């Protein structure tokens, strides 16, 4: 690289005081399954957003009192049987499913493989099958936030666009026509691919939410676009310096702010 073109620090200073102590009190559990890859990135995203990440192990039965849960990306159980199919039966998943469906409405975000686990768990409708072109795809992807009313999208505005990495093999979202009509009618498409449908997903769907908005799943990776120097080379506004894109941070600030500002959990 030639002369410095930007001044941003290459590593966020996590030792500096949290901008808001209330944010720091929000504890977000990150579940690790055998074969999970992106748990540390997801934990770092939570910490950079100002919250406190809590590592959770799939075989445990204790949610450790976390206020929200993220199921990160990767290839849990090597995608054996179907992506997410075996992880869905982990002891901790039973607790997460109960908590997500309870009156407390535990916020749950599934990213990539985590999204696949959520559909296998029937917390979210539909399923993901092999990309229609059969190739693993890795690229920076433009998305439109279609529903800014969920726990995980509240810091965005509806129609706002973001750019985050996309990297997967089984990313083609499918469901039956009745479910598709229901998702569209109820505004439950949370994210949609913009400009190019990378995998053949129905209606360009990149992410969906449950009816209450506490459970959200998406295939692209917002946790890889939270820290200047390590993100995409562009944002929704266009080209930026290399790695400077941080459009994904909004998902993580959304859950923290929602939980503080009259979230359903006391």
């Amino acid at each position, binding site marked *: 690289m030639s002369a410095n073109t930007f001044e941003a620090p290459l590593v966020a200073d996590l030792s500096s005081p949290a901008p808001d102590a209330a944010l720091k009190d929000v504890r977000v559990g990150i579940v690790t399954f055998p074969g999970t890859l992106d748990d540390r990135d997801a934990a770092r995203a939570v910490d950079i957003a100002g919250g406190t990440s809590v590592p959770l192990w799939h075989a445990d039965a204790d949610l450790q009192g976390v206020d929200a849960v993220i199921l990160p990306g990767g290839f849990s159980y090597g995608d054996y049987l179907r992506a997410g199919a075996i992880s869905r039966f982990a002891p901790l998943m039973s607790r997460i499913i109960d908590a997500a469906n309870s009156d407390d409405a535990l916020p749950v975000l599934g990213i990539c493989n985590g999204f696949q686990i959520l559909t296998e768990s029937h917390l979210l409708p539909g399923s993901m*099958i092999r990309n229609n072109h059969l190739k693993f795809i890795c690229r920076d992807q433009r998305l439109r936030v279609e529903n800014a009313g969920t726990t995980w999208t509240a810091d965005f505005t509806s129609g706002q666009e973001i750019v985050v990495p996309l990297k997967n093999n089984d990313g083609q979202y499918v469901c039956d026509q009745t479910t598709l009509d229901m998702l569209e009618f109820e505004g439950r498409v949370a994210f949609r691919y913009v400009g190019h449908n990378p995998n053949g997903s129905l209606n360009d769907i990149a992410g969906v939410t449950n009816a209450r908005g506490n459970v959200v799943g998406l295939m692209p990776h917002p946790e890889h676009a939270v820290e200047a120097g390590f993100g995409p080379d562009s944002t929704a506004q266009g080209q930026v310096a290399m790695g400077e894109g941080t459009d994904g941070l909004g998902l993580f600030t959304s859950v923290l702010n929602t939980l503080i500002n009259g979230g359903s959990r006391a």
Partner: protein
Amino acid sequence: MARIVVDVMPKPEILDPQGKAIVRAFPHQGITAFSGVRQGKRFELEVDGEVTEEVLATARHAAETMLSNPVIEDVVNVSVIDNSDSAEA
């Protein structure tokens, strides 16, 4: 030892990208007789004792709840293979 075979296929209305790739590759091998391919999965469940009606019911339950995803797949066969290794019951 007996085995129970479970066959799972993608639902007819769901696109099968793998099957599509296979049928497109056939002509490269000079195979032109087939107009379509759909790729499914075969599971063999080993049973140490006798395959009772109860064991079969458990196999059907496993097939519906874990071995297949009803959103995208159908269980098209649950049947027993006996010890002789040749005949399907």
